[in-house]
């Protein structure tokens, strides 16, 4: 009983967080920046930050993750980090030769007051940025928001700092990916191709963090949204933001700067959210939905119908990131399951508002909380008060699943102890199928394990 001290009595806590359901902004900025082709993320702070983020991403993806650091010292924290960043930019371009450096700040550089905009401008003025190369930045203080905020800030930085408008519209739609896996991004691109809508997806970590074994260590793998594509986003017909927390701010930035109209929809996880995505994309591209996609949808509905008896009424606890939890909750309700406890460490009212819309009618009794103290300790306490049949969340959920002896499905970030998330999507109808298969396998394996001998069934 690793979590033996978790009591069922829920008391208000003063500031303390136990077993967080979030982490800090900079890792989100680093992940987003890896989705630009030829980009080296740069952490403007202490060495440890960069090292921790790279290790965590490496554990999650089993891939090399490259990023540089300003390597702050005591001096830098007294006199400011400007000279560290200028030196870094020079070093990086001369040695690691990226096309782009994406700088993000940390709690340290933010607290001492380094201004990334001013420093990167100075680097440009001083001729430290070679012709045809770029330095973009995002302010990502660790003491505000979460890793999701950091992701959103870096993606917004891409939109703001790369987009251009030529005055001539391009027949393409921007799709801003909320925090999702490379496999999900690959699936979004496949669906768009199937629909015959030309999209600019950004960021795009497919072919970066799921690279093949090649006998070489490729510093800048072939994937990632290109600079040309990012520049062209100002000329697109419209923008679809997949997620109100992690994707919408970039869409807003494009609307402000180039009047590109946008629509925010949920990340296409599950049946109805994917329906909305397909409809929105077909509308934005002015195309009709091809039969193949309708058939994909049909297969998912067919499986849900076939297996409905094993799903209905099952209680689920889930935790993770807002843009993934929102459509997942809706999908669970569509599966006739009961998502009864939900926490997300990422603060913000958008989550609460959207969850209310989904839950108020169909499951008003659900406990949910996000932001401060919405941690796994709280979730575990709720689970002790009202037990569940299934837990869904990142790897850290395994402690609760073990202690409470309940089935557990890994979903979200980080997943440190299983593979699959890089390769098999959760988005789209095929992602829905994968989720249903995982849920059923978890529940039915448990049923088989626990069944009395006379009730042990061959056909299920």
């Amino acid at each position, binding site marked *: 009983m690793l979590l033996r001290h978790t009591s069922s009595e829920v008391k208000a806590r003063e500031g303390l967080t136990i077993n967080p359901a979030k982490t800090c*902004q900079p890792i989100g900025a680093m992940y987003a920046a890896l989705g630009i082709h030829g980009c080296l993320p740069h952490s403007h702070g202490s060495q440890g930050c960069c090292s921790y983020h790279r290790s965590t991403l490496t554990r999650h993806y089993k891939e*090399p993750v490259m990023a540089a650091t300003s390597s702050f010292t005591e001096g830098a924290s007294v006199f400011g980090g400007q000279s560290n960043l200028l030196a870094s930019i020079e070093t990086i371009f001369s040695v690691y030769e990226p096309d782009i450096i994406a700088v993000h700040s940390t709690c340290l550089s933010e607290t001492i007051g380094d201004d990334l905009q001013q420093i990167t401008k100075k680097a440009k003025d001083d001729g430290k940025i070679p012709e045809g190369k770029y330095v973009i930045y995002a302010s990502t203080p660790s003491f505000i928001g979460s890793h999701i905020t950091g992701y959103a800030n870096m993606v917004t930085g891409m939109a703001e700092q790369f987009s251009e408008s030529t005055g001539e519209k391009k027949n393409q739609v921007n799709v801003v990916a909320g925090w999702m896996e490379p496999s999900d991004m690959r699936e979004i691109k496949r669906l768009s191709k199937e629909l015959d809508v030309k999209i600019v997806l950004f960021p795009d970590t497919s072919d970066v963090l799921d690279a093949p074994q090649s006998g070489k260590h490729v510093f800048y793998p072939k994937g990632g949204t290109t600079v040309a594509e990012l520049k062209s986003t100002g000329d697109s017909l419209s923008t679809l933001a997949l997620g109100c927390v992690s994707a919408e701010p970039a869409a807003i930035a494009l609307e402000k700067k180039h009047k590109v109209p946008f629509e925010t929809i949920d990340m296409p996880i599950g049946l109805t959210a994917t329906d909305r995505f397909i409809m929105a994309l077909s509308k934005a591209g002015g195309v009709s939905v091809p039969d193949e996609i309708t058939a994909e949808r049909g297969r998912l509905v067919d499986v849900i119908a076939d297996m409905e008896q094993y799903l209905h009424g099952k209680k689920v606890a889930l935790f993770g990131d807002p843009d993934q939890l929102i459509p997942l909750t809706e999908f669970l309700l569509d599966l006739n399951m009961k998502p009864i406890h939900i926490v997300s460490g990422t603060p913000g009212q958008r989550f609460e508002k959207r969850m209310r819309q989904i839950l108020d009618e169909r499951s008003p009794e659900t406990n949910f909380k996000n932001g401060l103290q919405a941690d796994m300790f709280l979730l575990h306490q709720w689970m002790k008060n009202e037990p569940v049949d299934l837990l869904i969340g990142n790897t850290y959920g395994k402690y609760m699943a073990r202690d409470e002896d309940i089935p557990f499905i890994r979903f979200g970030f980080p997943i440190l102890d299983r593979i699959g998330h890089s390769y098999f999507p959760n988005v789209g109808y095929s992602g829905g199928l994968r989720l249903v298969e995982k849920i059923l396998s978890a529940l039915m394996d448990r049923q088989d394990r626990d069944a009395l001998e006379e009730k042990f069934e061959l056909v299920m």
Partner: protein
Amino acid sequence: MEQIGILEGRQRQVFEKKKGTTQADIACDTSSLSGSVSQRACVFCGSRVVLYPVADALHLVHGPIGCAAYTWDIRGAVSSGPELHRLSFSTDLQEIDVIYGGEKKLYASLIELIDKYKPKAAFIYSTCIVGLIGDDIEAVSRKVAKETGIPVLPVHSEGFKGTKKDGYKAACHALMKLIGTGSTEGISKQSINILGEFNLAGEAWMIKDYYKKMGVEVVATLTGDGRIDAVRRAHGASLNVVQCSGSMTSLAKEMQEKYGIPFIRVSYFGIEDMSKSLYDVATFFSLRPEIMEAAKAIVREEVTTLYPQLQKFKKALTGKKAAIYVGGAFKTFSLIKALRSIGMSVVLAGSQTGNQDDYARLKEMCDEGTIIVDDSNPVELSKFILEKEADLLIGGVKERPIAFKLGVGFCDHNHERKIPLAGFEGMYNFALEVYQSVMSPVWQFAPRKGGLK
């Protein structure tokens, strides 16, 4: 990628052993160049890895959430009892705390946690911004210690205040405050403390067992499977046995100064060093010759079993080449010897935190043509692995996928080892792991080393 050279300003941290040349000493103990893709971590990381295995203490990270989140149960330091160290506690500092200070939040969190978990002591880690906003964690610690009656130990581990090694020192400093506060009654004259052994995959248990069999009492293990009460009485031991060059030597020195306890440096990796670590302890207690007899018997028995088992691996691995890039340099010495004992040579040896003496010794040990690096990066590592045609990389979490992308085998000799690699049994595990990885059939399907072979 091959044409990428060595970072300017890093030439002095890279050395190739060549005959007949007198080369300057390797530059080390320096902070990393700004803008490098360094594999190093920070002060906080150093403190956290050293103290984290103390299982019945509360470990509260005072700072924004990240520092606590990234260090949550990442190192497989096993406990035989309490597991409080495996939870993640943070004051989760917000913008308002950065402006007005986080002392109140720290105080409230400590009181709440101590009340709930009843730990034997509490460690408070300060992170980068705590150093900047000027929270007086010493004062908060004193206050809470007074109110709760347990030791509350501030650890000054602000990330930017140096390298990981400075974090080790800060951790040792905190431990030093505990040592000497317990009773030493009943401790045998033939007693030791094991320092710098963190019980990854249960390694400390094996080591302790050997010493126990020799008739030597282990007072405290610092910090593997650690307990506060044992730490408090560690000053009652007659000898400190220190593993791992960086992390605990400073504690051993302080204990020598304050309590007159001598120390020896050992390593538990490989047959040669493992045996020596038993003999050295026995030699120290030479007034009791039966201890040496027992040590010899253990070594004889273990080696008789182990030696034939290793021959299969040696046959397959003879002539294969290894690259080593690990945290502390001391470990590389043992690894070189251990690899040689299974027929492998070392073509690259490096560490994140080695010092001048370590590198001098490394130079002496290595073969002609071996590359020696301090604070390396993925570009250099890949370059040398390809150039030197290594078949194996020994490293940590960030190096693993690089090895696999290059098509060479890998052995984790860091936090993420899943099986004990220390001791005699560990040598077998190590040889097996190296063998499995180097000889894996997957390399038949994958291009190797950029297509060099």
